[in-house]
């Protein structure tokens, strides 16, 4: 009787569609986008199919089962010791050869493998046809063609999984190496099996032999820690020498060449190419990485994004504001006044209603178009091109091009940007990238900049603030690089082809992000407004504001109420603006702030503190010490820059 519950792991190269498949299987909402390295932690979901419970695991994308990065280490340990019942190797049909390199390594591990030949739709668009049946024969494992974004083939994949679990089909793959290599491997693996029975129970002896030939430190360590380890190490050393004598190349190279040789033969045999033509996508790729044109295009993409937010958001904001002021607020006030006693009614009406109103009319109109545009950008494949263009500049701050991706994501929200910094290979670079990524104005800060400077002073001053922020990122990054010296490592990144963004994915992503923004932000807005109103009624407002006056009024030149809203802004950045409206009893900021004050206020709000959620993300990724130091640095920077900006701007006529 087969088990009722089984574990299925999705493994494959980066950006092949593992998470898209995972979402199809489990109905989850893992991040999907067109750049390599989105999934950084393994995710779990469950699904019920034909009376079974399947636990599905989404793994980070990997190119090999070596020990180059933490993700690969995690994936390899999980596959070897986590013992999933089935591993679904998701493979990109349009670049089979490279993808098969990992498949062969999975076969070496004697993993229970089923191949999902994904993106067959895209491959056939590029004139690439893969014979799934032949591929299955050659590798000895089931191969199911799929289109993860539409769900085509998912049902068949599930059936194959169930058949495999029921023992109806076998998935015992074949992996060939050249004759000499096989002979050497057999000798070595026999010795391993008889001398190291404990390890051989966990890892297949042939795989251990391969890894020893490759000089894998991790496996060498495992072998050495055993009693007979030195014996095997001596044998492996001899085998390595034999191999190198035959091939005249280091054994590592021999093994990699063998795999690629095999992969390339298989790929050739099962793939049919139709006459390749230069597609629009390729032309676009050519244009956007052009040595001269690439940079103005990058600038134009970013600027037009903000222009759209400004245009769409500004209009929507006006409409919503009128609607709220004219219709919702009077009705709401009337209703509350009728039900509740007078003191409480005032608290709710002025505090909560005004807060919600400001949240609705200021925050959402800017955030929705912004999320939509970001989702389109993420799904198109532009991010890796931007990373390519910015590689040089990123080296100046001790990073490489890939770090530009978390920076761009930072415009959406600093929390995923912090996590995305795992795209950097080493701890030092990860922290450096996060340190600057949180300075990028997130959507909440865009609400402040657009809702205040954009709406009252125009697009240009708002864009100037963004430009200033980018310059600041480079400057601060340079300083941090000086403080944390070390040789930056080079860029190695796959460049995925451009794709027409899938509208379904874009809409879904926008909706999910907006929803989570609303779910997280509105409780804060309500609570913040209530507390603020309570403080006001209790009469603590003035003493509090007066205590902060030297800093807020004298140094920054802001009205003293602004200090209080900046404190609340620690929770969420858009509170700084929304609560200002609550405090002043009007959402017409021109009555509260002068133009200079608007700029200084936005500048300080932009830099002064990563919000609570970001600090939590920093703590999780880098520990308390670094998180606190980063926060303190940002506060100091914001105060210094705010005061300077106030003085400099006041000099202007």
């Amino acid at each position, binding site marked *: 009787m087969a088990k009722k519950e089984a574990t299925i792991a999705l493994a494959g190269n980066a950006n092949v569609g593992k998470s898209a498949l995972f979402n199809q299987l489990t109905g989850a909402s893992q991040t999907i986008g067109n750049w390599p390295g989105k999934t950084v932690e393994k995710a779990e979901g469950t699904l019920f199919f034909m009376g079974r419970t399947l636990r599905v695991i989404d793994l980070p994308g990997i*190119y*090999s089962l*070596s020990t*180059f990065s933490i993700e690969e280490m995690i994936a390899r340990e999980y596959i070897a010791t986590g013992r999933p019942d089935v591993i679904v190797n998701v493979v990109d049909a*349009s*670049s*089979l*050869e*490279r993808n098969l*390199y990992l498949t062969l390594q999975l076969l070496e591990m004697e993993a229970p493998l089923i191949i999902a030949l994904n993106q067959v739709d895209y491959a056939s668009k590029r004139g690439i046809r893969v014979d799934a049946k032949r591929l299955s024969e050659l590798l000895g494992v089931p191969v199911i063609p799929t289109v993860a974004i539409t769900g085509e083939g998912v049902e068949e994949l599930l059936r194959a999984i169930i058949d495999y679990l029921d023992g109806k089909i076998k998935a015992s793959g074949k992996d060939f190496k050249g004759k000499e290599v096989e002979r050497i491997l057999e000798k070595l693996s026999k010795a391993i099996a008889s001398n190291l029975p404990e390890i051989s129970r966990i890892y297949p002896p042939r795989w251990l032999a391969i890894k020893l030939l490759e000089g894998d430190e991790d496996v060498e360590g495992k072998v050495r820690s055993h009693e007979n380890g030195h014996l095997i190490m001596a044998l492996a050393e001899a085998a390595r020498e034999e191999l190198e004598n035959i091939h*005249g*190349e*280091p054994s*590592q*190279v021999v093994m*990699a*060449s063998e795999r*690629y040789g095999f992969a*390339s033969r298989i790929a050739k045999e099962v793939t049919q190419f139709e006459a390749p033509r230069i597609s629009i996508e390729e032309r676009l790729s*050519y244009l956007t*990485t052009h*040595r*001269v044109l*690439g940079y103005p295009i990058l600038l134009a993409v970013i600027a037009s994004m903000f222009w759209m937010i400004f245009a769409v958001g500004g209009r929507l904001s006006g409409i919503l504001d009128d609607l709220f002021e004219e219709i919702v607020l009077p009705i709401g006030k009337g209703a509350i006044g009728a039900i509740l006693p007078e003191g409480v009614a005032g608290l709710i009406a002025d505090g909560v209603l005004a807060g919600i109103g400001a949240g609705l009319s200021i925050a959402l109109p800017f955030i929705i178009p912004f999320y939509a545009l970001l989702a389109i950008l993420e799904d198109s494949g532009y991010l*890796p091109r931007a*990373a*390519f*263009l910015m*590689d*040089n500049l990123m*080296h100046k701050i001790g990073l*490489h*091009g890939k770090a530009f991706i978390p920076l761009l994501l930072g415009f959406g929200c600093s929390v995923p940007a912090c996590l995305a910094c795992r795209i950097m290979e080493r701890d030092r670079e990860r922290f450096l990238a996060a340190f600057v990524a949180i300075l990028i104005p997130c959507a909440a800060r865009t609400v402040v900049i657009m809702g205040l400077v954009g709406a009252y002073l125009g697009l240009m001053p708002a864009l100037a603030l963004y430009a200033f922020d980018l310059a600041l990122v480079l400057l601060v990054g340079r300083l941090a690089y000086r403080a944390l010296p070390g040789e930056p*490592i*080079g*860029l*190695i*990144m*796959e*460049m995925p*082809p451009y794709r027409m963004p899938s509208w379904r994915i874009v809409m879904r992503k926008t909706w999910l992000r907006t929803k989570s923004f609303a779910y997280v932000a509105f409780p804060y807005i309500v609570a913040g407004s209530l507390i603020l109103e309570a403080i006001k009624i209790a009469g603590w407002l003035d003493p509090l504001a007066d205590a902060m006056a030297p800093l807020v009024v004298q140094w920054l030149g802001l009205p003293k109420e602004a200090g209080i809203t900046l404190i609340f802004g620690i929770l969420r950045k858009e509170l700084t603006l929304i609560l200002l409206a609550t405090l002043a009893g009007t959402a017409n900021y021109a009555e509260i702030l002068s133009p200079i004050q608007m700029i200084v206020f936005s500048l300080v709000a932009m830099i002064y503190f990563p919000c609570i959620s970001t600090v939590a993300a920093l703590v999780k990724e880098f520990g308390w010490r670094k998180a606190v130091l980063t926060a303190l640095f940002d506060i100091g920077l914001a105060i210094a820059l705010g005061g300077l900006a106030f003085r400099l701007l006041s000099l202007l006529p």
Partner: protein
Amino acid sequence: MDQGIPRDKLTEVIEAILTLHLEGGRASAIDVAKRAGLPLEEVEALLRSGQEEGLVVLDGGQYRLTAKGVDAVREHRMRFVHERYGHGRGPLGCLRRLLEGDVSDILSHLKTKHEIDGKSIEEIGAAKGAIEEALPLSELREGESAIVLYPLGGLGLRRRLMEMGLVPGTEVTVLRKAPFRGPIEVGVRGTSLALGFGVASKVIVKRSGA
């Protein structure tokens, strides 16, 4: 001469013998002459002096390198790699090169001062063809194709490059080069890969068709 490094003809000849052996082919005087692209008479004279110096032996009509000969090729290649890639070609690189003075033990010098590990050195020693044909991927122009000879650099980097498909013998095409020693986009095995300038200058290739 085109690369500013004198091509010692004797080394060229013994390098050709090594290559012929690695390719599993015969190495008669005619084969060697063909391979090295030199006139037969000249090659014969060179081979004689090589025999005198104990670098090559004649063995049943075929030439073979002695251990000393293999070392000589390796030494030659190491010096070439050192001058060509160990230092930048700009004025700063020249200055550093001058300051280093004459390096007598080139092998340990490469290992300790230039962080090129032992495996890379072995690979360079065993590579087929004349070392002068080799150039870093970063020096190719947009649109040019080449065959990967060997990746240099530390263990981790070399492993990653090979995993991404850049094993010796692979054909690569330069698709894009960013300005000012920026990254390089190459087509490898049907996918495209962005390599930082530093990384690309560690991938040693040979122009295909050259």
